């Protein structure tokens, strides 16, 4: 079921400053991760990105995920460490038609005439969490207060 991303996650996906990665699994079950600068959030709340290489592992794994309803993960990381993890099942690979042709021209403007476009991938987000270390640590302390090394709670004088 698609969700609406938080404002922070949406802004991170749309920011040109963040590093964006996508992690996928294919028929062999091996995880694969790749940086995708073109990952963004469309006005309707769907994650989108351009796959530029037709036979890339990410492309194959996304087809696999679409065919067999498997989730993929998208991660954003900002320079200051703010990070967001989002998951969803690919809904569509746009490979032809007006929207594809516009995107193709956009790719050529951004990356030069040697760039090609294979598909615009559309992924409705289904799950998200902030992955910034400080936020995750705080959550962990509340959820699992005793999953720690004991020296951290030892008396100061005895450390």
């Amino acid at each position, binding site marked *: 079921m698609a969700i609406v991303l938080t404002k922070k996650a949406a802004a991170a996906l749309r920011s040109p400053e963040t590093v964006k990665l996508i992690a996928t699994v*294919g*028929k062999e079950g091996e995880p694969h991760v790749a940086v995708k600068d073109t990952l963004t959030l469309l006005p309707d709340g769907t994650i989108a990105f351009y796959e530029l290489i*037709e*036979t890339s592992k990410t*492309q*194959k*794994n996304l*087809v*696999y995920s*679409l*065919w*067999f309803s498997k989730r993929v993960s998208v991660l954003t990381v900002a320079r200051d460490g703010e990070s967001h993890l989002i998951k969803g099942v690919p*809904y*569509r*690979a*746009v*490979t*032809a*038609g*007006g929207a*594809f*042709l516009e*995107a*193709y*021209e956009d790719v*050529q403007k951004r990356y030069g005439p040697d760039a090609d*476009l294979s*598909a615009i991938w559309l992924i409705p987000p289904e799950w998200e969490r902030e992955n910034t270390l400080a936020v995750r640590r705080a959550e962990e302390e509340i959820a699992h207060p005793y999953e720690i090394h004991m020296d951290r709670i030892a008396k100061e004088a005895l450390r």
Partner: protein
Amino acid sequence: MADKTNPRKIERDPNWRKKEESFAEITKKYETVSPFIIAQIDVQRRGVFYTDAALDRVDPSIHQISKSAFAVYEGRGVPTSLLLRDGTSIIVSETSTQTPRDPYTVDVVDGKLMLTDEDRVVEEVFFWEKPKFFEKTTSRGTPMCEVLDARPQRFSVAMSNYCHFWTKPGHGCKYCGIGAGGVKFKGTDEERVHLGDLRETMRELVKEKGRFVGVILTGGSIISGSEPFEDELNGYIDALKALGEVFETRRFPSQVNSTAFTRRQLERLYNETGITCYTTDLEVFHEAIYEWVCPGKAASIPYGEWKRRLYAAVEIFGKGQVNTGIVSGVELAEPNGFKSEDEALRVDLEEAEDLASHGVGLKHDVWHVVPGSIFWNRTTPSLDYYVRLTKGFYDIMQKYGIPSHMDSYRKCGMHPNVNHDRI
């Protein structure tokens, strides 16, 4: 009231659903086969019908419209075909696919264009969009949409509208509608593609950025020439040279699907043009059934010789650049086809293995019974048969490491086993 989904008044078996496994059952049974590919197969097998609501979604200024349509749609644009969410094309013509089974229905559900069956939603679908050159005309006055045809990512040249096998009574392939309908073109201006029209259309086509990834040239067989099929070969060479004029590179993504040429002819085709891939379809993977279904082909080129020419093509074009296809299902046609699906599948896969062991790629076209063909009124096999065949061809291609890009979902779209080779 007349059944609008059955304009040709084909006799339908009201119990056909009870006699075979459904789409839902087959997708559960074959967990490693893409449900999208299974949907493609079943729609190609059973055909489609468009509701009024679906046809209201057709915008003739954007969508590709079938060039011939049934009276039931008179005055309305009928979409050429459909795309699935993963980019798989369903090559299905409402105007030529009529089977004794009920067709799928394309309708609008919750604002989306949906493939449905018995009021159940199967998949979202999209109409094909036409290329810009379709609106233009050559200096001779030929509409460019008649010079080149298009699918979502590839274009095609119909080299010859008339197949010479039909000159001799009973020699046309029995499932073929092209040949039977092509007799009217014999000796006319429209019998063969016009090179001037082709050049002008290509100049327009290449302006469309991001539109096409390949071209296929195909047409009816032309027996004439200094040796058999030399005129057909010369036609392909001339057309490929004309196409190549618009490209900077010597070779461009292109495929000829022709009669099986001799080694000398194949060398000419490869050396004199910018071609990259070659196909020649055996149509049936069994000698005796081939001779019955394709008598004209068999009289000109015996089954074993056709195979030898494929092997020669692999040596010239390279592994992964040559394949052969069957019209899957005709091997079970009555009265001379196989008596059971299991037997047909066993023979198909044995022969497929032999071909693949020589580097020949495999593909199959789901047989849709074409109006006007000799096999009109026959019935196609079960969905289970087609899925087993698709998986069998796919597995054999993987086993022998034969790439399938030359006929991929982008460059063709017609072949389920090749469309499956994306993961």
